C-alpha cells in the first residue's frame, strides 16, 4: 500500500451524469420538453424507446403523452424496424436509444427500413462521443463516421439546450430521416448569450476573430467559446463557427471562414476519423483550397474508462488542452 499523500483520484460518475461545469447555467431535460412541445402542435409525433426512456429524456414525453409513447424493450433492431413501420402509416416517430446501439447494433435497420425509403424517422442517440466514462461499450466515438455514409440521413450534433430546443421541431418538420446526437439531463445553456438561432443545415459564426478560426460542433462548441475567451488572455483573437448540422454540411459558410490567413482548427466530440474534421477536410480539398486544418478530436483508438474531466483532458478536449494545442500551433 502506498503511504505517500496525493490528491484523491476522480471517480467515474454515474453513466448519465451531466458534463456541465460546476455553477454553469443548465436546462433540465431539454429534449424531452422540446418533444412534448412539438407534439402539442403536431399530433402525428410519437415516441419510441428501447428500454432507455429515462436515460434519453424520452420519459418526459411518455409522461405527457402516455398513449403516444411505445416501449419496444431492449431490442434495437425492433425499435428501428418498428419506427419505420410507424412512419409508413404516416406518423412521425422519434426513437431513442444510446448512440452506440443505434449506430453499431441497428445499422442495417436504419439503413434499409428508414433511410432507403427516406422516411421521416428521427433517431435520437444518447451518450455521443465521449460523454460517459463507461468505456467503449457506451462511448459512441465513431457514430458520425458510421452514419455519414448513409444516404438521405441528416446528422445533427447540437451544442446545448438552446440547440436542442430549436432543433426538435425542425427535425420533425423535415421530410427524411434524422439522427440527433442527444445531450440529456442537465444540459448547459450557452448559445442564448449569442445572436444565434438553430437552422437545420446551416453553420453560424458565433464570434469573430483575426488570428484563429474554430470550426466546431456539439458540446465542443461550448469548449471552443470558453477556449476563445482563455486565448484572448494570450492576445490571440479567435473566431468560432458552429456547425451543428454535419450532414448535409454547410460548406459555403465553413469554407468562407477557412479561406483566410487564420489558423483553422476543427473541434469535435468524436474520433478524428470520419467526423467533422474529415467533413471539413473533404470540403476544403474539393474546393481546391491548399489550406492546413488542425484537428482537435478524439484519437483513433478505444478510449479508457474513468471520470469525464480526466478523460477530456487526457484526450485533448479540455479547455486547457485546446489552449495549449492552439498556442503550440502558433509558435
Amino acid at each position, binding site marked *: 500500500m502506498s503511504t505517500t499523500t496525493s490528491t484523491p483520484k476522480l471517480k467515474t460518475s454515474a453513466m448519465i451524469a451531466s458534463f456541465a461545469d460546476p455553477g454553469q447555467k443548465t436546462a433540465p431535460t431539454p429534449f424531452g420538453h422540446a418533444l412534448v412541445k412539438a407534439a402539442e402542435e403536431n399530433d402525428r409525433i410519437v415516441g419510441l424507446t428501447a428500454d432507455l426512456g429515462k436515460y434519453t429524456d424520452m420519459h418526459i414525453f411518455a409522461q405527457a403523452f402516455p398513449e403516444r409513447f411505445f416501449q419496444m*424493450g431492449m431490442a434495437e433492431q425492433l425499435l428501428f424496424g418498428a419506427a419505420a413501420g410507424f412512419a409508413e402509416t404516416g406518423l412521425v416517430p422519434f426513437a431513442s436509444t444510446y448512440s452506440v446501439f443505434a449506430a453499431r447494433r441497428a445499422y442495417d435497420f436504419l439503413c434499409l427500413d428508414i433511410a432507403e425509403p427516406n422516411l421521416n424517422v428521427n433517431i435520437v442517440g444518447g451518450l455521443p462521443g465521449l460523454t460517459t466514462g463507461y468505456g467503449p461499450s457506451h462511448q459512441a466515438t465513431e457514430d458520425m463516421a458510421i452514419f455519414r455514409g448513409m444516404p438521405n440521413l441528416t446528422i445533427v450534433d447540437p451544442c446545448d439546450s438552446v440547440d436542442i430546443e430549436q432543433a426538435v421541431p425542425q427535425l420533425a418538420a423535415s421530410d427524411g430521416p434524422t439522427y440527433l446526437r442527444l445531450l440529456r439531463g442537465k444540459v448547459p445553456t450557452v448559445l442564448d448569450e449569442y445572436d444565434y438561432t438553430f437552422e437545420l443545415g446551416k453553420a453560424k459564426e458565433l464570434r469573430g476573430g483575426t488570428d484563429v478560426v474554430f470550426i466546431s460542433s456539439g458540446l465542443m462548441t461550448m469548449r471552443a467559446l470558453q477556449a476563445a475567451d482563455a486565448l484572448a488572455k494570450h492576445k490571440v483573437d479567435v473566431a468560432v463557427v458552429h456547425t451543428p448540422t454535419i450532414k448535409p454540411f454547410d460548406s459555403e459558410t465553413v469554407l468562407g471562414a477557412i479561406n483566410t490567413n487564420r489558423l483553422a482548427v476543427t473541434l469535435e466530440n468524436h474520433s478524428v476519423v470520419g467526423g467533422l474534421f474529415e467533413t471539413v477536410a473533404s470540403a476544403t480539398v474539393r474546393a481546391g483550397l491548399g489550406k492546413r486544418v488542425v484537428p482537435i478530436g478524439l484519437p483513433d483508438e478505444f478510449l479508457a474508462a474513468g471520470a469525464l474531466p480526466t478523460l477530456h483532458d487526457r484526450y485533448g478536449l479540455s479547455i486547457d488542452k485546446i489552449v495549449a494545442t492552439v498556442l503550440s500551433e502558433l509558435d
Partner: protein
Amino acid sequence: MSQLTHDRPPAAAAPLEDRVERVAAAAYRMRHYALNMGEVQGQGYVGQALGSADIMAAVYADQLRFKPDEPEWEGRDRFLLSTGHYAIGHYAALAEAGIVPVDELDTYGSDDSRLPMSGMASYTPGMEISGGSLGHGLGVAVGIALGLRFQGSDARVFNFLSDGELDEGSTWEAAMGAHHHQLGNLTAMVDINALQADGKTDTVLRTEPLTEKWEAFGWFTQRVDGNDPEQLVRAFSNASEQASTTGHPSMILCDTLVGRGVPLLENREKAHFMRIDESEWQICRDQLTAGFEAATHEGTARS
C-alpha cells in the same frame, strides 16, 4: 383476368369450397406466371415461387383487402414480403390481383423494370417494403400494426417470412414485441421449405420445434400443409376469427415443397437458386397444366 376487384376480403361470405377452388385456381395461374418470368431470366427463384404460390394465393385471393387501381389506398390490408428473393412469387400474386399488368411480368429482372430480382418498395406498386436483408419484415410489421391501431384503422397486417429467416435474431425481437403489444391485427406466415442458401435448414441452423417456439412467444400458432389450399383457407379463417384490435398475433406455419406443381422440379436436387435448362421450361409448363387438370378432374369426379 382476375376477379379480385373488391375492397373487402372475399372470404367474408363465400362457402368454403368456393374459396378453396378460387385459391387453387389463382395459385395455378400464379405458377404459370412464375415459370414465364423464370424463362425470361433463364434463372431465378422459381423453386420458391412454385412452393409458396398457394400461400400467396390464399392471401391475395382470399384474405387481403385492397383496391387494384389504388395500391396505396389508406384502408388496405398490408402484405409485407420479408424475403426479397421471393419477389418473383409476389409479382405473380400482384399480377393475379390486377395490381401489376400480366404483360409487364416479361420485364422481370431486366434493366429499368419495375420488377427487380429482389423486391423493393420504391420499384413496384403493391410492394410495401424492401425486403432482402432478412429479419426486417416482422419488425416493420409490428410498427405498421401499432401505427394503424393507434390511428383507429381496422386494416390488418400480413408478413411473409421464410424458415431460413428465422435464423435472424431480429425476427424474435419482433415476435416478442408483437405479443407484448397484443397485435391481434398481425398475421405472419412462414414458408417452411426446409432449405436455405447453404443447404437443408436442419443442417445449417436448427429452428425446430417451430410450433412450440411460436406458442412460447405468445402467438396463436397453426401448422398446415402450405401446398393444400383447403388447409390454408381454414387456417386463415381461424386467424381472422382471432384477429382483433388487441389480442394474440397469429402465426401460420406452412410446410411447403420447393418446385411444387412441377414434378421435374419437385424431384430435382434441391437448391436455393435453381438452374433450369432452356429446353425444360415448356416441360415444366406442360407438367404444371397436366397436374392441375388432373386434380380439377378428380375434384369434379368426386363431387
